[in-house]
């Protein structure tokens, strides 16, 4: 069977009667290419249904108002019954909208495709470790990792002591389709399996507004820090990168983050959890170059434990250095090898402002909501005291203009997950 056969689309959309359906399921059992085609078709179907629904919600009120005010030939032709109907309709827009959502949800969950087919998209090396030294020295943090308990491998990145390792780095490329997998799973009525939840992919699925690069620079590098909403004694640091179209970067380019040991006890990179079967040398395969597309951006979150909130170990003491140096939380550097020195190297400092989460920019609130959603779905030991209800609240606070409706769609997805968790 090849992907040009319309029967495959019919199969993916659950349009076939039983004998035909089974026959095709058998025929494609051995072809990953065809299975992927089917999974992608279903993904597009889910996305299209969702966009139609969002577009409908937006249009529902406006044209009705217009009709009611203008009162053209319709009214004389249809009589008072319809007038009453349309007026009543204005009042029940919300209620019926919900019921139509439900019917669409159940329609999309009718798929007969086995879940392993739909979810079978992860490729080896797709989620290479971002900190090479982590992979090389896995027992560096055995004390912190030991807290993970007697459970199976979770791959979560632990808090890392700044004293032992002040530097961390992240790749400029997030290559994870995770959000669509998570979304499809929840829309089908299933909470996604832990390993399919890739938080960095979820965060970066959404567009964020960062300033354009300064003249003469290829990227703008933006740092923010607020009180961490799911653990109030911690800080949440956001690193936002925006690039110009056409810059070419090597695939191993990274943002380097250096934490100030006088201010920070430990830090944790959110997401980028390791895969169980991940080869240790996967970084070495990360060769080649990328050209940065228009609108490129990267959002990375660190959870940071300030020094004053951890018990000082014997022999350590709070430095009494005065001035800004003591307030400096971290320095982030972007070094694009091969680019000329002026445009390829950017360095930014971040001081701890102690801003409350409520004062955070919308985009940061929203990204935090997505991160916490991912951690709750993974049942992460670092999810803190956040809840799905709070995820919804943070996402609503951070919703902003939401021109494409992506954020509204996210909020609805969290609501669905909430009802799945309850049931």
């Amino acid at each position: 069977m090849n992907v040009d056969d319309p029967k495959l689309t019919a199969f993916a959309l659950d349009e076939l009667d039983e004998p035909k359906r089974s026959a095709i399921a058998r025929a494609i059992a051995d072809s990953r290419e065809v299975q992927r085609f089917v999974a992608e078709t279903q993904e597009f179907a889910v996305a299209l249904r969702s966009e139609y629904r969002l577009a409908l919600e937006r249009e529902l009120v406006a044209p009705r108002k217009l009709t009611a005010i203008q009162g053209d030939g319709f009214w004389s032709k249809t009589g008072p019954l319809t007038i009453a109907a349309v007026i009543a309709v204005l009042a029940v827009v919300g209620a019926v909208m919900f019921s139509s959502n439900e019917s669409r949800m159940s329609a999309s969950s009718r798929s007969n495709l086995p879940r392993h087919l739909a979810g079978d998209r992860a490729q080896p090396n797709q989620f290479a470790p971002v900190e090479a030294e982590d992979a090389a020295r896995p027992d560096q943090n055995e004390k912190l990792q030991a807290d993970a308990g007697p459970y199976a491998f979770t791959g979560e990145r632990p808090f890392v002591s700044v004293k032992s390792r002040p530097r961390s780095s992240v790749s400029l490329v997030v290559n994870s389709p995770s959000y669509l997998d998570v979304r499809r799973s929840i829309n089908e009525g299933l909470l996604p399996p832990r390993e399919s939840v890739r938080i960095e992919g979820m965060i970066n699925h959404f567009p964020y507004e960062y300033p354009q690069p300064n003249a003469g620079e290829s990227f703008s590098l933006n740092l923010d820090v607020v009180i961490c909403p799911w653990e109030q004694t911690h800080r949440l640091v956001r690193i936002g990168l925006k690039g110009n179209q056409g810059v070419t970067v090597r695939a191993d380019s990274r943002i380097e983050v250096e934490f100030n040991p006088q201010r920070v006890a430990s830090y944790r990179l959110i997401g980028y959890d390791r895969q169980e079967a991940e080869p240790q040398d996967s970084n070495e395969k990360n060769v080649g170059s990328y050209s940065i597309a228009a609108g490129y951006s990267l959002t990375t979150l660190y959870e940071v434990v300030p020094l004053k909130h951890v018990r000082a170990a014997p022999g350590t003491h709070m430095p009494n250095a005065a001035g800004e140096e003591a307030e400096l939380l971290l320095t982030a550097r972007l070094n694009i090898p091969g680019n000329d020195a002026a445009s390829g190297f950017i360095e930014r400092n971040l001081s701890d402002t102690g801003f409350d989460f409520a004062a955070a920019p919308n985009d940061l609130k929203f990204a935090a909501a997505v991160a916490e959603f991912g951690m709750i779905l993974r049942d992460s030991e670092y999810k803190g005291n956040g809840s799905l209800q709070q995820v919804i609240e943070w996402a609503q606070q951070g919703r902003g203009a939401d021109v494409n409706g992506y954020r509204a769609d996210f909020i609805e997805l969290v609501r669905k997950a909430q009802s799945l968790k309850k049931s």
Partner: protein
Amino acid sequence: MRSGITAKREEFEEIVHRFEVPLLQYARRITGDREQARDVVQETFVKFQRNGALRREDEPATWLFTVCRNAALNVCRKERRMMYVDEDVIEVRESEQPMPFDRLEQKEATGFLLRIVSTLPVRQQEVIQLKFQNDLSYQQIAEIMQTTANNVGVLLHTALKTLRHRYAQVAGDFIPFRPRPIE
């Protein structure tokens, strides 16, 4: 106890609510004109009210879209825009908007995928809308478009293929996390 008239009115209200905007979009795609689309949809509801009692037992979607489609094609005929009436021409006619993603109001009007849908040939747009907005089966869509379920399958398959292709072409500009590898 509810009177028969109340029940009938509630039923009609719900149908107007459920189908008004989808029918407006559908008719607009065929006529290419917002105001004409409104006339067509109003005419459709009037007919439904007159004849609906006879078809109470049926799922109204097929009936509504069929009547709406015929009314929209009639408008085109009256306007002597025969090229729009001819089914074959409709099938190959590309939208007048090739890939106009830079128009602000368009960006705000619909989602990313729907903007790509609006660049497909009209009949492909039709099947996509009937299938994914209104959850109709191939058979129902075939009845509405006066063709075979097989042909609906081919149209939908072709439309999704093009959609996927164009999505991949432009996604780099909209999905910020996926820089394009250099060949």
